């Protein structure tokens, strides 16, 4: 058990070293640099353009449905790719099983279509 934990000691050392390095760099920077605050410098940097409006902006909500629909297909891809690599050894029964799986997933798409989600509003 003790050996098990000692194996992680280098990891801990690297972690401490990394955090220490960043902290040291930022602190020394702060201590050494000259600071002259002007209104111009305190502006939020936005690609060289003066920032417009509030920070609390709204983006259009209609995209979220497409994000959901994307998830449906992202999920089946997660299963399809590993299956494709071993398909040769599994035979045609597995095609049927995959068809059942895709069929269940497709129900989500059919539902979205019937509820009018696919038409751009």
């Amino acid at each position, binding site marked *: *058990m003790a050996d*098990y934990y000692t194996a992680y000691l280098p990891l801990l050392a690297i972690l401490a070293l990394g955090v220490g390095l960043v902290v040291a760099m930022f602190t020394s920077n702060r201590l050494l640099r000259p600071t002259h605050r002007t209104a111009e410098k305190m502006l939020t940097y936005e690609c060289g353009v003066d920032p417009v409006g509030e920070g609390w902006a709204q983006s259009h909500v209609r995209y979220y449905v497409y994000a959901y629909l994307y998830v449906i297909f992202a999920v089946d891809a997660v299963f399809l790719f590993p299956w494709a690599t071993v398909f040769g*050894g*599994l*035979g045609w*029964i*597995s095609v049927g*099983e995959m068809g059942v799986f895709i069929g*269940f997933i497709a*129900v989500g798409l*059919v*539902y979205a279509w*019937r*509820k009018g989600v696919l038409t751009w509003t």
Partner: protein
Amino acid sequence: MVDLGGGVQAIDWLAVAPVLVVACAAVVVLLADAFAGPPRSRRQALVPAALTLAGVAAAAVPAVRLWGERRSTFCVGGVLEGPAACSFVVDPVTLVFWGVVLFGTAVVALLGTAAVAEGRTPQGEWNFLLLCSATGAMAIAASRDLVTLVVALEVVSLPAFAMVGLRRDDPRAAEASMKFFLVSVVSTAVMLMGVSLVYGATGSMFLTQVDQALVTGAGPREVAVAGALLTVVGLAFKVAAVPFHMWVPDTYVGAPVAVAAYLSVVSKAAGFVGLMLVLGLGLRDLAPVWAPLVAVLAALTMTVGNVLALGQQHAVRLLAWSSVAQAGYMLVPFAAVGAAGAAGSAGAAGSGAGGLEPLGASVGYLAIYAFVNLGAFAVAAVVGTRHPRQRLTDYRGLVREEPLAGWALVFALVALAGLPPGVVGLLAKVVVFSSVSSAVTWLAVVMAVNVAIGLVYYARWLVELFRPAEVPGRSTYDVPNGVGVAVGMTFAAGVVLSVFPGLLLDPVLAIF
């Protein structure tokens, strides 16, 4: 298990049929609703609930055929790889839980029809989610490996979040849903951490192999203990054991009554069966570690639940705290597993049961609680159609003006309290009590005190039922047909089981 050449597992279709039927019914409900479009009449709005009931009835057919059998499927291993381990096992425990889940789902679907008149809950989606969640609850009872178990538990929870918040323009429901969601996700994370530690320490996901690894002492035991404790904590959130109960009152009150009934019975049953499988089958060898922890949890849960129920004026909130307290009673037999196990292995080693006998009491209590608690919620749904604020004073005059609902609630409350006319409730308490009284005496004393505290608030509510209504006619209801049937079903089940308690308790207590 013979390997069929291509690595494709043979599947025992009859064993998985009940789960499969419920899952397919969910898809049917969703598609039927999607193609039918928005309901044009009250009658059409009831179609999803009718389909749900048909699905539940269809799932009950193979479940009844399986009664008394033991079947396992989705197995790995075999002649060359050593003893087979199965992911999906149908045994008496599974079947009892399937019965509870199917009955509970049917009652909840009927209670859900109360929301039709209001038109703020999309019925198709609601029933779809109900069936999805029920699928998970059925799968968990049959799961015998940790991955299937965790996935099934999530299948129970995920649709339930949406069911809680599905009512349109109801900020309280949304808040309830959010709380439930956050707590449940955290508990899943904790539980997954525990499961991964158990897997790391034992090298297997199958509960039987986890048990073997622990008995033979392969792998670091400290890691397994840490995993076991985290898993208990994760499942304690699901069954709402104190101190992981904070979400319960707000979620139950914010959710529609039907969903609160679902959470308090089916969802809680799923958590308990998960706890029972993980602790009883997988981590049995660690009982000396987790049994005292569960004993403390049980004592805290019933005490906090009962004491906080004392001051409630809101009927559903009172039922919420009461269900917390009831979960405490259900946890009590777990505390006796270690003690009984020690005695069992000293006396009759290799008897097979291995000291799990007390868990039979837990199963029995859970089943009886399910019937009577659904009854109480069913009547609360009736009252809620006219008095959505659900104050206890709104129940005045119920017995006189609406006798069926009134007496059904009287019976349910008496049974929950464990008083004689509700023989089922009394027997459930006796069974739990006897399982623990010789093994963990202090817990039996705590339980006895708690049963006495429970009497106070149940009696307070009972008194309101028999008082005359402030304004005559204030307790008359235009009971929706579905809700009426639900009240009748639960009442009838309670009465039948009170007259013939052996119907349920004999097979359940003989399981372990």
